[in-house]
């Protein structure tokens, strides 16, 4: 299988990028795909807190760190690369990847590439689509509406929304459902992957004492998220030759 790069980003903070990256890592593991992650929230990484063994904290503005990711794509046995881009750096990261020639290599069929663009509830978020879209060539562009904290997207005028989506030909809309906030907080406190919380384990792999009810909420929610990734054919899009 060809190496695949999945960029998770937004130009705004607080839209749940890291949460989405966490679900993606759980999803790949559930489908027996080896993945690694790069957390661009240098120098602290919040993704690394949940998935320490799979995650490396990087500074995407530094050449040496760009090399750390892109130059190891073919040699790493972990073919799925999830990059959690720091808020506000999505456009600049895509620009850098273009300059390096990575996106050309994608067009040449050398690598697989997908962009998970996490949309916020404001119209500014829609304008981001216009900024970001050209880099993807319209291919494997996922517009992710994150309802995990019950964000309402009502600020969006349907007509405006439609016009942006028309422009983004081939864009795939992904909806992440709401998770009960108490359950979300408990996983956050536990600092473990969602799948580990469900299995009632702690970070060391020992038995934890998580609430049965909250584990149930997380399990049902994660199943819906996985169903959504299945629905949009995420794996096929990343692995099809």
């Amino acid at each position, binding site marked *: 299988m060809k190496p695949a790069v999945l960029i998770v980003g937004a130009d705004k903070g607080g839209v749940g990028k890291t949460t989405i990256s966490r679900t993606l890592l759980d999803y790949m593991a559930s489908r027996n795909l080896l993945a690694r992650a790069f957390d661009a929230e240098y120098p602290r990484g919040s993704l690394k807190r949940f998935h320490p063994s799979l995650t490396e904290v990087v500074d995407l503005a530094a050449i040496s760190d760009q090399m750390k990711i892109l130059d190891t794509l073919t040699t790493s046995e972990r073919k799925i690369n999830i990059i959690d881009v720091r808020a506000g750096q999505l456009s600049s990261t895509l620009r850098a990847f273009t300059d390096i020639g990575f996106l050309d290599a994608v067009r040449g069929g050398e690598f697989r590439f997908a962009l998970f663009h996490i949309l916020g509830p404001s119209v500014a978020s829609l304008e981001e689509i216009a900024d970001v879209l050209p880099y993807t060539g319209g291919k494997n562009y996922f517009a992710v509406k994150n309802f995990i904290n019950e964000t309402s997207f009502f600020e969006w005028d349907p007509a405006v929304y439609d016009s942006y989506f028309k422009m983004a030909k081939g864009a795939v809309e992904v909806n992440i459902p709401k998770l009960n906030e108490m359950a979300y907080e408990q996983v956050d406190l536990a600092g473990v992957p969602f799948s580990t919380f469900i299995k009632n384990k702690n970070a060391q792999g020992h038995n934890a004492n998580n609430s*049965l009810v909250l584990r*149930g909420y997380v399990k049902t929610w994660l199943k819906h998220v996985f169903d959504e990734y299945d629905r949009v054919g995420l794996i096929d899009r990343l692995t099809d030759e």
Partner: protein
Amino acid sequence: MAEKKHVFIVASPRARTGKTTLARLIAEYLTLTGETRKLFDTDVIDHKLASYFPTQAHIVDLERVPDQMKLFDSLTAGEPTSQVIDVSHRSFAKFFTLMRDIEYVAEARQAGRYPVILFIPDAAAETYDQGLAILEGFRDAGFVLVRNLALGELPQEKLQEGSVDILQSHKPHIIMPRLDPFTLSAVEDPRLSLSDFMRRTSTPDALGPIPPVQMSIAYLSLEARKATLYWLKTMFDEIRRATRDVDLQADIVAHDRFGA
């Protein structure tokens, strides 16, 4: 094999089917057999079970997550005890959705408790459809069909319908005999402890003086008290038999699955 702890889930999709009466009888039955138990009432509007056991029953609102945790997480907290859950018609759908989503049956069995669903249909055939969905949805739990004779019979032409036919021939079941209205109103007096009444009336000076807190019984004729006693004995026997039968079924299933 160690004594099983049961989670008795008494449920009906309809109001006034005798759920609380049965839940109360099971609680009293456990008292008589000397078992510790936890009681939960899921009806926040009209919590009748809690009115019988004001200091013991926990009222839980299944719309609230902390209450859901109080109910379902009690499985893993503290010493294993039996539980009785009175599932109100108002929380019927919510309860079984939660139960399915959190895989309660598997978790309970792992924690050494065996969930037993006691389902009470009424005289409408739809309630049998709902009961059958529960039976099929929770195959790893015990299922007892409860026929409350006070609710009347189904119309003859409904008896052949799939879900009615399956549930009416389901084993184990519990038959709740009718009680005449006067005796019933005495039994339903919250001040009356049924286990206490049972103990008193089982001794040689049975049907002797009644303590003041049990006055509602004192108004009953000797005949009515005998009827009450007979009814209670029947119900406790039914509960004992049904519990034994679901345990036997569970053991047979475990045997078939894992060998001798």
